[in-house]
């Protein structure tokens, strides 16, 4: 952990302090989980492994693949904005999905999940892509102007 020759002694001590504090806090959490009767251990482990493996082996590769395929045939100048919009859409989807699925609705409580989340999600996604399209249009117009000016200067 100390490794590098350039690392100062203060840094080394700070590192040791952080690691020691971290071990204590994480140990406290693990001990609490194991001893707390209100946490069912097997479902907890199953859930944690599912989200970990689901993220690392499914969601992340899929996101990278979609990003790759979706921007592959785009002109160079359009890629950054579209990649950014894809990122915003993907992370918004992670937050919106449980609401859109709506399993949390309660027949006796109309104030629980009171909105039309399909509509809300579509509005949010439309806002993201309209903004992106506007940015791209502005960019295209600007680059046409610049190239036109350059063209005039050359002639």
């Amino acid at each position, binding site marked *: *952990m100390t490794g590098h020759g350039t*690392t100062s002694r203060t*840094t080394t001590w*700070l*590192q040791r302090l*952080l*690691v020691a*504090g*971290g*071990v*204590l*806090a*994480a*140990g406290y*959490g*693990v001990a*609490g*989980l194991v001893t*707390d009767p209100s*946490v*069912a251990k097997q*479902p*907890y482990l199953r*859930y*944690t492994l599912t989200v*970990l493996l689901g*993220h*690392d082996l499914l969601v*992340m590769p899929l*996101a*990278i693949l979609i990003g790759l395929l979706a921007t592959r045939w785009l002109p160079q100048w359009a*890629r*950054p904005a579209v*990649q*950014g*919009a894809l*990122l*915003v859409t993907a*992370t*918004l989807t*992670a*937050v*919106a999905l*449980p*609401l859109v699925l709506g399993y*949390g609705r*309660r027949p*006796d*409580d109309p*104030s*629980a*999940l*009171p*909105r039309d*989340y399909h*509509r809300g*999600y579509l*509005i*949010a996604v439309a*806002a993201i892509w309209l903004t992106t399209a506007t940015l791209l249009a502005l960019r295209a117009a600007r680059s046409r102007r610049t190239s036109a000016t350059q063209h005039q200067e050359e002639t």
Partner: protein
Amino acid sequence: MVRLPEPLTRLHPTRLSRLFTSRLRSPQLTSRLGMLLGAAVAVCFATGYLSHAIQHPPAWFYWPSRPVNLYRITQGLHVATGLAIVPLLAVKLWSVYPKLFRWPPFRDAAHAVERLSLFLLVAAALFQVTTGILNIALWYSPMSFFFTTAHYWTAWILAGALLIHIGVKLPVVRRALAAPSRRPTEAAGLSRRGLLTAVASAIGVITVATVGQTLRPLAGISVLGPRDPRVGPQGLPVNKTAAGAGVTTAAAGPGYRLEVVGPSGILRLSLGDLAALPQHTAQLPITCVEGWSATATWTGVRIRDLAAAVGGQPGASVRVESLERGSPYSTSTLPPPHADDPLTLLALTVNGEPLDLDHGHPCRLIAPNRPGVLQTKWVSRVQVLT
């Protein structure tokens, strides 16, 4: 010897991490994202621990009854920051994703331990974010464990694993942040700055789409708010209905009596008796641990007046019990600052109307600066603790 066709040889473990070609990944990017993420986790941990301590106060803990809206801010911040973590965590994990496939997987024993601690860190982070999102969406079935305690203990694991990670990576982070910002060669796609702008935009969109559940002026544009502070019986959201709590008969019946217990004796009051006592009005929010809140005007009897009527002294705690049975939230204890506060009421009306059954008819507790789960509804008993 079998020679695999070209695409398959690329999947050999020694080559897997080289599949990822983005030039955007760098220690500089990861360090910057890591610092932002670390700050966000710190905010969530601090506000989350605070909420836990208010509900299960340790001996040293003191929580005031003012400012009235303090808990509303800290818990609103907890949920909003937790949602802002989604894009930060996603991009942070993307920036180090190829390292997951490094070959050989570890250099030595110390390196193996460090990589195992990373599994703990990533698992705890994903656990906290996903269970938090499921909980505010009221979708409990994927979590077949008790959310509250699991989220609390895992917060300690996340905080600990994060401290270990910062400790291990400190020299790398320092070098990365001190290094002159080299202009990456014009790559096809997002620049580092562009990526950070996209992360900021994602945080902005997610926040605007949800924060109206606690910031009423934004309720109209928060199209993905899990709650709407304007929607519910009498224009106020409800977390648990009378039917859900199984109190409909007992709360609506004419036989209702409130029992007030103190050092000098016991009072049994009907709803009419309560209404005949001096009434006071307070503007107070209902603030749910799930991050929504809504202000209303409540009228009723001061808890400190009830306590005084049975010989309670200032500085005593007061226990409030519900008609509801078998729920961890069916009783709550008002610590002295809240019990003595003139704004703490046993409310009989909200916004000028008798309480709806779902808001706690015949009467409910409403106190300043407290989580909603402690604002006991369908109150059947008030006891001065000595």
